[in-house]
């Protein structure tokens, strides 16, 4: 049996959590269960699988962050890898051992060459720089719509890659920065995922989130009801970029290397696939799809290697996407969350 407020879909998205404490408890419980699972995984699985799990968490966080930009606000941005690259390089330069940095990166100013930060401040600065770049770029490109924005942000990836490849003194060129300190383990990845999901969830079910959805549905009408659409779009773009930059920094320190090609257009495609297959705007969908695609590509990798058909897993992912677009263009979960997830975390009483 349901309370009246649950009978219409409008009420579903519009009403804020009625008993926050219950949702909070559910969230804490979920985190505890996840943490226990991670702990168990660390005990029982080999290090490859644990790293894979961390990768999965970061992918899921990326997909969720793109949900905010692409799904909720309807900005079709492909720029995530650009911000990831920026974040990864910023963090890598900050955490790199000061002894080797001076000779490897002669272009660095002295104060940077002698700095050696731990992961946490480096991560924050990476996010900050990513956000500032997004602010500058967003002001320019967010006036574009639909696929114009998509191509402009795709161009941004190439611009950033070009800078990373050619600005040798700071980035060490095409070879990239390897031998980064392995500061990031699975706990960082889990923590990051939790924070990204929590922030996105709070935004989605707040007046801010509703304003974003209004902009997505009809920008003109939203503006007429007093929503500052331009500012809202930049905000969504910047939040997404901050999360992407941090994810880039985390991934670099998980695999201890970053090159200009680490975060490519292919990655932009894969994150978009996760969002589209999950359903634009659905946090649950993004997590489920990110899990499925990460696991699928990893599972296919040994097959690829054994028969020598590199690229097969990408072909399969691309074909899956086309089939989903054809059969279920709204994605698996549409733009909402499945009922049980909503009930659990928004803390509404059920009888």
């Amino acid at each position, binding site marked *: 049996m349901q309370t009246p407020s649950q009978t219409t879909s409008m009420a579903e998205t519009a009403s804020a959590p009625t008993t926050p404490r219950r949702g909070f408890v559910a969230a804490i419980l979920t985190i505890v269960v996840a943490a226990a699972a991670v702990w168990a995984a660390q005990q029982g699985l080999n290090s490859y699988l644990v790293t894979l799990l961390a990768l999965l968490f970061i992918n899921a966080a990326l997909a969720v962050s793109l949900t905010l930009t692409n799904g909720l606000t309807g900005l079709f941005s492909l720029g995530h890898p650009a911000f990831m690259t920026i974040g990864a390089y910023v963090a890598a330069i900050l955490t790199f051992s000061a002894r080797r940095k001076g000779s490897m990166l002669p272009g660095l100013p002295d104060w940077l060459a002698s700095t050696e930060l731990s992961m946490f401040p480096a991560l924050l600065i990476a996010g900050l720089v990513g956000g500032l770049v997004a602010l500058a770029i967003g002001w320019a490109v967010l006036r574009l719509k639909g696929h114009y924005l998509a191509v402009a942000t795709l161009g941004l990836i190439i611009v950033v890659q070009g800078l990373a490849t050619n600005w040798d003194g700071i980035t060490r060129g095409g070879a990239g920065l390897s031998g980064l300190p392995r500061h990031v383990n699975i706990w960082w990845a889990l923590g990051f995922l939790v924070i990204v999901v929590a922030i996105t969830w709070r935004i989605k079910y707040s007046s801010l989130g509703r304003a974003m959805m209004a902009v997505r549905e009809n920008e003109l009408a939203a503006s007429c009801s007093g929503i500052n659409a331009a500012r809202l779009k930049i905000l969504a773009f910047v939040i997404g970029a901050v999360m992407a930059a941090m994810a880039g920094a985390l991934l670099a320190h998980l695999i201890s290397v970053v090159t200009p090609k680490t975060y490519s257009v292919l990655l932009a495609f894969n994150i978009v*696939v996760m969002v589209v297959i999950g359903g634009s705007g659905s946090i649950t969908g993004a997590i489920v799809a990110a899990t499925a695609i990460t696991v699928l590509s990893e599972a296919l990798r040994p097959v690829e290697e054994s028969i020598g058909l*590199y690229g097969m897993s990408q*072909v399969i992912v691309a074909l899956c996407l086309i089939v989903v677009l054809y059969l279920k263009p709204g994605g698996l979960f549409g733009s909402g969350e499945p009922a049980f997830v909503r009930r659990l975390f928004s803390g509404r009483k059920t009888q």
Partner: protein
Amino acid sequence: MNQYLFQQLINGLALGSLYALVAIGFSMIYGIVRLINFAHGDLVMIGAFSTLALVTAGVPWPLILVFVLAIGAIAGMTIETIVFRPIRGASQVTGFIATLAVSIAIQNSALMILSGQPRNFLFPAFMRQRVGFGGVNASLTDIAIIVLTLLLIGGLFLVVYRTRLGTAMRATAENLTAARLMGVAVNRTILAAFAIGSALAAVSGLFWGGKFGQIDPLLGFVPGLKAFVACVIGGVGSIGGAMLGGYILGLAEVLFVGLLPQEFSGYRDTFVFLLLIVILLIRPSGLFVRQTEERA
């Protein structure tokens, strides 16, 4: 004329020809189905590898040109029939993602079949000689690319502006419903646009291999994106605009590399996409189009 300047000019025009051939098809397809076709660049790759296969099989060059046009046309029609037609009528973003998926699928299938190793690609020896004109000289390959491109574009203009099919294509691009009411078999017209556009892209792949001497399965990605930039320069949806945009882009790139000191030449693509962003901001409908239609 100064040899250096002449060399740069020919080089820019040859590069511009490659971009123009890709951009024209891109623009035709956008014009008729309002689809930014990301897989369009991959037809350049298909054209390049088809050429390589035909050369290896010993087919004479003039025939290769014809075969590559045909292969491009067939590939384009296949993609349109299998993937794009079923999702026609879906949102713009859905269409865009689908083309991205097709592109990724083509690139990775090519990687699977051909491996990522770049292959050498050579025009016959006589094409690599230089020909002189009163004190200056240029490579025959570049000259051939420029001349053949002009012929192909001339042929295209004849088809588009002087035939029943061309009129039907322009009519369908402008108003699909009204075209159907005139008895135009719209699906066939769209197929024709894909066939022509894709054939031109494939030929540009043949030229690409000849100009740069090496090809690999991912070579189509950047020309695809640059075709979009060329279209934006000239106004998306206009064939003449796409052609002009292609030439402007080719010349601008060569100028950029030629004028700036050596260490900046790696920033070539960075420069192109910064140019794109700047043009989109200043004149979103292109440099040669009156500012009327909203870019939505």
